[in-house]
C-alpha cells in the first residue's frame, strides 16, 4: 500500500491547461489522469506497456502512461485523446477513423489515434510500412489493422488538401 504521507504535488500541463496533481510519487500517470483529472479517454488494456491503449504524449513523445510514475510528469506538457480535437472540430485523423472504419469497439482507438497523430507529426507523409511501424506499439483486436492503416493514410491526404 502506498504511504499516504508521501503524496506529492505535480505541476504540469494537460491538454494545454496548467494543472496540479496530488498523488503518490509512484502512482501511474494513467490512474492519475483518469481518476484525478477525470480524463477517462485514456484506457488501460494490459498495465504492462504492451497494448498501447493508455498512450499519451509527454512533451511530444508517445508513451504508455501505465509505465510512467506521475513524478516523471512534473513540468511536462501532456496530451491525451481529449486534447486531440480542436474544440468541436475533429482532427483529420479522428475524422478519417470515422469515415474509413478505423474504430470498431473503440477501446484501443484513443491510444491508436494518439500514435497516429504522433507519427504524422514526425513523418507527415508516411509509407504504409512507416504507418505499420508507427502503430506497432498499439494493439487492436477488432480491425486486423487494415482499416486503421487506411484511415491514417487518408488523414495524410486530407491534411495535404488543407495545407
Amino acid at each position: 500500500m502506498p504511504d499516504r504521507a508521501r503524496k506529492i504535488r505535480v505541476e504540469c500541463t494537460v491538454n494545454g491547461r496548467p494543472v496540479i496533481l496530488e498523488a503518490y510519487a509512484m502512482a501511474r500517470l494513467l490512474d492519475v489522469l483518469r481518476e484525478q483529472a477525470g480524463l477517462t479517454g485514456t484506457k488501460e488494456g494490459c498495465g504492462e506497456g504492451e497494448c498501447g491503449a493508455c498512450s499519451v504524449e509527454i512533451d511530444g513523445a508517445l508513451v504508455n502512461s501505465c509505465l510512467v510514475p506521475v513524478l516523471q510528469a512534473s513540468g511536462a506538457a501532456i496530451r491525451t485523446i481529449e486534447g486531440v480535437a480542436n474544440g468541436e472540430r475533429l482532427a483529420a485523423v479522428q475524422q478519417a477513423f470515422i469515415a474509413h472504419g478505423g474504430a470498431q469497439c473503440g477501446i484501443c482507438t484513443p491510444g491508436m489515434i494518439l500514435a497516429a497523430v504522433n507519427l504524422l507529426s514526425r513523418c507527415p507523409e508516411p509509407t504504409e510500412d512507416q504507418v505499420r511501424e508507427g502503430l506497432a506499439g498499439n494493439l487492436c483486436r477488432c480491425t486486423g489493422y487494415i482499416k486503421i492503416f487506411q484511415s491514417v493514410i487518408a488523414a495524410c491526404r486530407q491534411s495535404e488538401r488543407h495545407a
Partner: protein
Amino acid sequence: MPRKEGREKVTGQARYVDDITFPGMIHGATVRSSAARGRILGIHFEGGIPWNEFTVVTAKDIPGKNCIALLIDDQPCLADGVVNHPEEPILLLAHPDKYLLEEARRAVRIEIEPLPAVFTIEDSLARKQLIWGEDNIFKSFLVEKGDVESAWAAADRIVEGEYQTGAQEQLYIEPQGMIAQASPAQGVTVWGSLQCPYYAHKALVVVFGLPKDRIRVVQTETGGGFGGKEEYPSMIACHAALLAWKAGKPVKIIYDRAEDMAATTKRHPSRTRHRTAVTRDGKLLAMEIDFTIDGGAYETLSPVVLSRGTIHAAGPYNCPNVRIRSRAVATNAPPHGAFRGFGAPQSVFALERHLDRVAQAIGLAPDELRRRNFIHEGQSLAVSQMVREKVDMPRLMDRAFELSGYHEKRKRFDSENTGKDIKKGIGFASFLHGAGFTGSGEEYLASEVAAQATREGRVRVFAASTEMGQGTNTIFSQIAAETLGLDPAQIEIVQPDTASVPNSGPTVASRTSMIVGKLVESAAREIQQKLIHAGFLKPGHAAEDFAGASRQYIEKFGPLKSLIKYEHPRDLHWDDEHYQGDAYGAYAWAVYVAEVSVDLRTAEVRVDDFVAVQEVGKVINPILAAGQIEGGVAQGIGFALYENVVWQEGRMINGQMTNYIMPTSMDVPPIRVFFEEVPYARGPAGAKGIGELPLDGTAPAIVNAIAHATGADVTRVPVTPEVLLEMLEGVHA
C-alpha cells in the same frame, strides 16, 4: 453510413465500465483457488490488514442458489467445500482503497487439500479420475448419414489423420468489469461490459432468488467481446452484486489483464480424428469424424460449442456417407467457452487440413479434390440438411484463385523454392458457416424487438442486442432507416437495459444482423403500416412526411409502437434426437487463400498475402462488413501461428500480453476482402450472418500454405516455431 457511435469513440468520450463512478462506490476483488482440484479446509485472513474495514462475501452469503445459471446449474458462483479448477472463485472482498484491496486479496490464505486432477482430453476420456458426472462427458453427439461401414470396401484409398487445436484467448482490449448496486429495498442493478444482458439477468435472478423485475442489467460501451463476454460476465455481475448487497454501497469489479486471461473463458482445445474413403478420381465415399473438445471444469456452454463444431465438421461437401461422433469432456481447467466461431474453427481446421492430405494421397491437386465434391443446390449436408439456397462454391474458388494468383504462384513457388532458406507457399480452405442459433434454437429463444416513433419523427429501436464494435448500432439504424425511408440519423438505438428493452436474445452466433436485424425491419415496417392504415402516410412516402404523420398519429391514438416476435420459418425442421435436419436457416460460404514465407533457419512463418472471398447475402454496410472479415482473419492468423496458451496443472501460465502473442500491425498481411452478393430472402435487405465466418477458414488456409512451402505435415495449431521445427524434422527424416 459511418459508425453510429464513431465520434464518441474517436474523441475518448465513449464511456466504458471502468470510466463510470458512482458516489460512495467501493472496489471489489476475487480470491481464487490455489489448486486445480481439492477440498477447501479453511480460509485464513492474515497479514497486517485492517480486516474489519472489508466487506467479505463467501458462498454462505448467497441469498438464492449458489450457481451461475446457464444451461445446467453445475458451476457455483463461489466454491463451497470443493474446488474444481485453479482459478475458481472462493471469496470476494470489497474496500474503498483499491491498493489496500489488492494487498488484502494476497493476504487471504485458502487452505486446500489437493485431490488428483485431470488436465488432458486423453486422461479425461480414459477416466483417470472421475471429475464430472459419471463419465467426465458433458455432452456427446452422433450424426449419421448413409452407411459409412458399407463404403470402406469400395474405396480406392482410406486416409486417416489426427488434428489438434489449442486454447485461444479472446483478448478483447477492454478487460472484463461490472458495477453493481444492490439492496433488499431496491433490488439489484448491474452495469457492465457484456454481450448478453439477459444471460446476466437470468444468473442474477437465481443467485438472489428475486423476481425478474427486481433485477436490472445495463450494458455499458463494450470494448470487444468475441464470445469472451458471452457467459463469463454473468459470474462477475453476480460477484459485484453480492458485494454491493452486503456492503450497502455500489461496488466495481474490474479484472486486470492477468486475472482476465487466467480466469475467464478461452476457445476450447480440440482433437479431431478423420478417416476418409475416397475413389482414385477423388470422389468422397465416406467420412468418419471423431471430434472431441476440452470443456474445462464445468459444463457452461460446451454442449452448444460442441454442437456447432459437430455440424460444421464435414464442411461444404456432398458426401453420401458420413458419421460424426463428438463429445465435450471435463478437465480441471477453468471452463472453456464461447469464442467467435464457437467450435467450428476447430473442426473446420481439421477437415480442411485433412482434405489437402487426402488429395496428396491420391495424387490430385487439393482444389480439384474439393471441386469434385462441393455441395450444390438440392444435395444434402452431413446433418442431412437439403441445401435449398443458391450455392456456388466453384465460383467462389475461381474468384479467390484469380485474385490471389493461386495457380501461377503454386507452380512458381514449387520451382523457385529449391535450395532456398526462405520457402514460399500458397494454400486455401473452402468452408461454410451457419448463421443464427442451431436447429430449434431460434424458435426457443423467441426473440423480440420493439420500436417506437416520437412526434418529431425519430424512431427508437429497443433490443437487447449489444454493440461491441461489430456494428449493431449502425446496422440496426440502417435497416430501420431503409425500411422507413428515413435518414439513419433519425434512428436511435436504445442502450440495452433489461428494464427497458425486450429480450432479442444473446449477441452471438452471427445472428444479430440476420435474425434480430430482420425483427428490426419488421418492427419498423409495422410502424409504417400503422401510419398508412390510419391514413397519415402514403406508401412510397418522402422522408419529410414521416414526422408529420407520426405527430398526427400520436395526437389521435397515443404512443406509436410496435413489438415483433421471431417466427420460425415453417419449412425449417430439426430433429434434435437424431441431430438431423435444417441446422441453420442460412449459411455463409467462403474460400480463403493464404500466401506464406517460411524461414527454415528460424522456423518462423510470415503471412504475405491473404484473399478472403465469401458469399454472405447482401452486404448492408461494406466498410463494417470488410472490417469484420479483416479483424476475423487477423484473429485467425493468431490462432494459426502465435496464440499459444501454455498450461501448467490447469492454469494458464503466460497470462500476459508480453508472453501471449497476438498479431500486431507488423504481422498482418494485406487482407483483401471480396463479397459475392446473393440476396437471402429471409434476411433483412437480403443479408446473412457474417461475424464468425472468418475464424473458420483462416488457420487451415495458412497451415495448408505452410505444408505447401515446406512439405511438413503440420497437423496442429498454433504453428509456433517450436512446433514447426518438430514437424520439419519429419520432412528430412
